[in-house]
């Protein structure tokens, strides 16, 4: 077990050196050269469920517990599950204590965030991530959990999984569409260390090309509100993905201005644009007049890296598991776009 982890870390570091500036993502906690890749899970391993952001009731997470057990995992339900402090899954103190206990727990191989919402940024600076050096584990989630992915990337130096949370698990698989079940299964594959390859249909607005680099990204709004803070990510030489929900087009445009003006678009290896769902309608008198494709294209037309639209990540049924902080290769052609993880 230990040997295989060591080997993977070696591979990852080797890859990083080979492709130049990957070590820009150096963690500042202690040993700056050691990028952490949590171990693969296997039957019998333990996974925790906690609520660092919005609240989730016991019944909300019951399908996830059942499903994870079906995968052969032992589920440790955190104290914040079922707690409710207004919109939060407990007070800041309760959410910090619960997350911290999971970080500290040597038994756990993964932490599944029950849901997003709002609240991660209130507690991120109060969590001591240093025990992860001894007990690395996968932190799983998306949306508000982008705070954790970014922080782990910028400050801790540990890979994590951008994926569905507890609402993505069906109580009865027959009520879920095949794409939902397939997307859910990619989380199992990611946890089990299986090779992840995603192929999406071409979009005529894609910019073809091939790139490899460390994958990082998440929710665009969260990335903007982390700009200039200690959790802000360095995107140089990386494959960068973004998604969002419920934003107006002008606001998406403004956030892309933020990405550009904070230097996050100029030195990418590639850009992956996921879904922008439930776009808030414009004022009918002042339609924004541009699509999400126009918005992105306007900001990246001066560069030459590959750009892939309509990728299967976002607040939608097809939201696959993506390993942040891990090397991937992206191929964008007129036939399809394919993202392949390598390094495990």
């Amino acid at each position: 077990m230990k040997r295989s982890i060591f080997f993977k870390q070696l591979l990852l570091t080797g890859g990083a050196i080979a492709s130049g500036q990957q070590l820009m993502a150096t963690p500042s906690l202690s040993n700056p050269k050691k990028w952490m890749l949590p171990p693969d899970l296997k039957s019998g391993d333990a996974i925790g469920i906690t609520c660092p952001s919005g609240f989730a009731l016991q019944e909300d997470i019951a399908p996830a517990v059942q499903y994870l057990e079906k995968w052969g995992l032992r589920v440790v339900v955190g104290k914040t599950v079922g707690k409710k402090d207004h919109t939060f899954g407990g007070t800041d103190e309760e959410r910090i204590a619960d997350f911290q206990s999971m970080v500290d727990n040597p038994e756990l191989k993964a932490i599944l965030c029950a849901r997003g919402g709002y609240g991660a940024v209130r507690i991120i600076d109060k969590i001591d991530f240093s025990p992860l050096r001894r007990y690395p584990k996968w932190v799983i989630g998306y949306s508000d959990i982008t705070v954790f992915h970014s922080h782990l990337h910028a400050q801790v130096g540990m890979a994590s999984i951008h994926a569905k949370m507890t609402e993505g698990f069906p109580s009865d698989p027959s009520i879920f569409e095949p794409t939902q079940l397939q997307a859910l299964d990619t989380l199992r594959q990611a946890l089990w260390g299986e090779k992840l390859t995603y192929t999406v249909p071409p979009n005529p607005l894609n910019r073809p090309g091939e790139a490899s680099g460390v994958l990082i990204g998440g929710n665009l709004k969260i990335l903007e509100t982390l700009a200039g803070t200690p959790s802000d990510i360095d995107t140089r030489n990386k494959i960068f993905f973004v998604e969002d929900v419920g934003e107006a087009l002008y606001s998406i445009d403004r956030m892309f201005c933020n990405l550009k003006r904070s230097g996050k678009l100029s030195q990418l290896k590639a850009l992956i644009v996921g879904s922008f769902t439930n776009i808030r309608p414009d004022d009918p008198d002042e339609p924004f007049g541009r699509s999400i494709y126009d918005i992105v294209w306007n900001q990246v037309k001066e560069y030459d890296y590959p750009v892939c639209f309509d990728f299967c990540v976002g607040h939608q049924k097809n939201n696959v598991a993506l390993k942040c902080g891990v090397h991937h290769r992206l191929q964008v052609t007129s036939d399809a776009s394919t993202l392949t993880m390598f390094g495990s």
Partner: protein
Amino acid sequence: MSIQPPYLCKGDTIGIVCPSGYLPLADTNACVQQLQEWGFRVRIGATVGNKYHGFAGTDDERCADLQQMLNDPTIHAILCGRGGYGMSRIIDRLDFRWFRKSPKWIIGFSDITILHAHLFGRLHITSFHASMARAFADKNFSNIKTLHNALTGKNARYRCPPHQLNRKGEAIGPLIGGNLSLLAHITGTKTAFSAVGAILFLEDVGEYLYNIERMFIQLKRSGLLSNLSGLVVGGFTETKDGKIPFGATVEELIRAQVEEFSFPVCFGFPVSHADSNVTLKHGAIHRLSVTGRTVLLEEQK
């Protein structure tokens, strides 16, 4: 120390431009009339009344109009017609070389916060955070009078009633700030500025409470709040809340975020998207005094 553009005299010319959102030409009528009554000449920029979707023209058109006003030596002040959205798209294309040699007053707020931040952080030039062209038609004329006072060089001195969440104290420093969403939006970008020793003022409109808190946390985590000398909280109007209430008022959530610091804080200052929006000289040294009886913000000579 910041550089202060020359104050205006009768006969000087004020240019009106729309670097962000679209403004119908007719919406400037009251403004033009008033500026003329004050004895100023008015030049209407090409972007006023111009429309490209929600913008007052394409990026090229808005950039060119503002650039022309910045460079034109016969223009003594630039009044932005309205805010909206669009400054982020053109700020990096503006050339301030001529303006730097021959600065003039730039007036506006909301989306224009980006321009104020750029003028303060990069060029060290003071500007006016104030109501824009459309507000001249409003009934609340006292705001507009503060702009005339400011343009003609009267020192600002504003009072507002105490608020139970105020934190008492005195502060002296450059007065900077504006719209919270825009200040969060420029954090981590090339327009970000240092607020060490500054009196920061903030206002916003139409934001969710949780998002106001998230932006405040961003400012705090970026280090912007740690060395302030004072905080002036203006109006947070038309705030939104979810189906499940956030559980704190905007004043409570802001006060909680600055609890760890000791600088004076005042709430309810008349700077906002609503009726009260006095003219503030952005970047100039002010004194803030928060007592149990009153709040005073005055420009220092």
